[in-house]
């Protein structure tokens, strides 16, 4: 920052507000000078992405923006979105959510970057190709020039999208949830990539739900909740000493700050399930070999590793859904027939959307004849109330549905539960509530849990034992 000799205002929003279609974003003002970075932090539904869209002029139909914008020295009325279109690519670069979907599935990586060089920056075709291949090589994608988006990993696609969006040298970069769906190492790579812009004298506006991203980017942070600014300040101050109750709750939901779970006392007991020297191949590729693990009643075992390393396959083997290519699985003799259960990553995908929760509970009761009385206390523990049950899975929140899934599974008194990233689609506060409940109940019911996660900090906090799978 000290190397900057001149401070110029690149992006200024004055009383920028959004309304319409049941959405209200209260007026917000901020200034981004050259070399500065600003992060909008908030949970799903806080309206943070709409602010990016209002600046770009891409709000969905039915929503309109008010207030004034000053972009690279020019003033714009926020209510006239079309006026910013001429800035796209040249002054304003938008790094989209889910880069996989933002790249043309039928065009090679190099061509997608080269076309910005050619049509936006005005280079000749050979010069544009050369610039694209140089830029992609610099980002470590020399091997991927001729690949189609479907052949790229999420992290690679994000780098291609970054190169394509910033090829015309726009000084202002807006990144909308740039780390969504990436695991921790990939996430840190993207953060580093984003930091290039302010380091070269540009301005960076990042929108994220990930506190770690905000922390690593530094600069100024604004915490949003339901369209309102809750708190703002420099990252190192705000993220370490939040003043408002909501900010404290949000930051407290970071796994490293969670209270310790009740301690595990059953280490002397015999394992409920143990795997010995497992080897697994999928599609001609060996996922892992010589994998041995055992889980005791009430123990929480964490499983971490990059995507595609076979975490879910390990679960299928332990659940008895598929067989390993080699090795064996031993199950405790007391294991009932349906004693092995699973929690799913995406709660709505684990339910048929057509039936009410009451109907699903009745089905389960009719099938297993457990006592009706067992339901109410467990529901209370899980924070589920009676009126909720009359709705269908799509009509309640992801957190509520995941707690209902836990209820359904626990009614069968399982001995082993494979939880496949059960909270990765939930907001941080909900994630903490759901996981701490799961741990508590597992300890009480002496149910062994295998918890898959992409967040090493979370696993370290919650689990008694960690299994790391290599890629």
């Amino acid at each position, binding site marked *: 920052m000290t190397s900057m000799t001149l401070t110029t205002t690149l992006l200024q929003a004055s009383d920028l507000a959004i309304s319409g279609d049941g959405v209200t974003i209260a007026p917000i003002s901020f200034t981004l000078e050259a070399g500065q970075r600003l992060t909008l932090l908030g949970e799903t539904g806080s309206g943070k992405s709409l602010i990016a869209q209002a600046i*770009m002029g891409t709000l969905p139909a039915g929503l309109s923006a008010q207030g004034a914008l000053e972009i690279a020295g020019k003033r714009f009325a926020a209510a006239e979105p079309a006026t910013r*279109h001429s800035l796209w690519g*040249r002054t304003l670069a938008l790094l*989209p959510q889910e880069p996989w*979907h933002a790249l*043309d599935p039928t065009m090679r990586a190099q061509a997608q970057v080269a076309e910005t060089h050619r049509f936006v920056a005005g280079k000749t075709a050979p010069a544009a190709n050369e610039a694209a291949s140089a830029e992609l090589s610099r980002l470590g994608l020399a091997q991927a020039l001729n690949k*189609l988006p479907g052949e790229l990993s999420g992290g690679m696609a994000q780098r291609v999208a970054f190169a394509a969006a910033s090829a*015309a040298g726009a000084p202002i970069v807006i990144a909308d949830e740039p780390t969504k769906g990436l695991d921790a190492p990939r996430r840190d790579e993207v953060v580093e990539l984003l930091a290039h812009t302010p380091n070269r004298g540009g301005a960076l506006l990042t929108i994220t739900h990930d506190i770690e991203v905000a922390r690593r980017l530094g600069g100024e942070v604004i915490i949003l909740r339901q369209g309102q600014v809750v708190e703002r300040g420099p990252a190192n101050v705000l993220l370490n000493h939040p003043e408002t109750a909501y900010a404290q709750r949000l930051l407290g939901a970071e796994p490293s700050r969670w209270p310790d779970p009740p301690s595990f006392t059953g280490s002397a007991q015999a394992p409920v399930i143990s795997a010995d020297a497992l080897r697994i191949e999928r599609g001609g590729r060996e996922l892992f070999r010589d994998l041995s693990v055992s889980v005791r009643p009430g123990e929480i075992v964490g499983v971490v590793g990059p995507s595609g390393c076979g975490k879910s396959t390990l679960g299928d083997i332990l659940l008895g859904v598929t067989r390993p290519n080699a090795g064996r699985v031993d199950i405790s003799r007391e294991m009932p027939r349906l004693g092995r259960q699973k929690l799913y990553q995406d709660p709505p995908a684990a339910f048929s959307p057509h039936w009410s929760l009451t109907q699903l509970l009745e089905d389960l009761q009719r099938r297993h004849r457990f006592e009706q009385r067992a339901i109410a206390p467990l529901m209370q523990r899980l924070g589920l109330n009676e009126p909720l049950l009359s709705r269908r899975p799509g009509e309640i929140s992801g957190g509520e549905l995941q707690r209902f899934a836990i209820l359904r599974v626990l009614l069968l008194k399982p001995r082993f539960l494979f939880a496949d990233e059960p909270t990765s689609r939930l907001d941080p506060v909900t994630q903490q509530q759901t996981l701490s409940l799961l741990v508590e109940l597992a300890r009480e019911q002496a149910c062994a849990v295998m918890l898959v996660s992409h967040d090493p900090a979370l696993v370290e906090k919650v689990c008694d034992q960690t299994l790391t799978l290599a890629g």
Partner: protein
Amino acid sequence: MISRANQGLSHLLLSRLFQAGLVAWLVGTLTFVLTRTLPGDMAYRIAAGRYGHDMVDGAAAEAVRAELALDQPGLSAYVGWLWDLLQLDLGRSLVSGRPVIQELSHQLGHSLSLAVIAVLLSLLIGPPLGLAAGRKPGGVLDRVSEVAASVLRALPAFAVGLLLIMLFAVTLGWLPAAGHGGTAHTVLPALTLALGLAAVSSRVARNAMAEVSHSAYYAFSHTKGLSARQSFWRHGLRNASVPVVAYLGVQFVYLIEGVVVVETLFAWPGIGHALVHAIVARDVPMIQGTALVMGLLFVLLNTAVDITCYLLDPRRRRA
């Protein structure tokens, strides 16, 4: 990569070749069953049709009987029937007495010219209209073309043809109603077929384009700085045309069926017309020949669609 790509294409061609074999077998078997269900005096009646009632005698009937292998036991006749088919020996027409192959070679040319003109015409009308409508879903053009497509889809090809004849030939007198000759004769039958094809392809193109214009990559191509025109030509057109071309394969079913009806309506001397005539006259060798050629044409057109999709969509080359 290259060997894998070729493997994809050769697999594709192989399965189409298999389909061609299946078509030949199905047509052969069904027409064989047909010969066996002909009533007893069929040979006599057919001979009467061929040589005239006065000329017919036992010998002529016998010749017909031999031609259709009506005198042999079932299985050996069936094997012989398929063997002839395999050698492309389709026999002689029972009506005209000329070799079926010779008849077909004339008719095929007529049918092909009609089909090609109809497909080209439909491609000029349908997809451009659909793409334009899909760029603004819910707009005026979208609604108007939707109503037009719904009306056309509810009218069978022969009704569309009849309406066109009434309008352009009978009422306005601009074009000939039926027959075969110059360009003027081609307009109405080709337009009849083309309208039916375009009614569907315009909606497929519209849906494909609407999907593309709502996609994240289309939005990104805009925010990257490309103009609306550049985005459309570089990202919209190819992605939208993949489903349109793939759907052409389904549409060729309609084309083949349409050819039968439209040729009959306009007395167009093509294969479809010949097939209907052969069925009415129970001219078994001609039924077999025309059905076979139409079936194989269908396979050929689908192969062309496969190859186009393959060239258009690089994902298929990698898969």
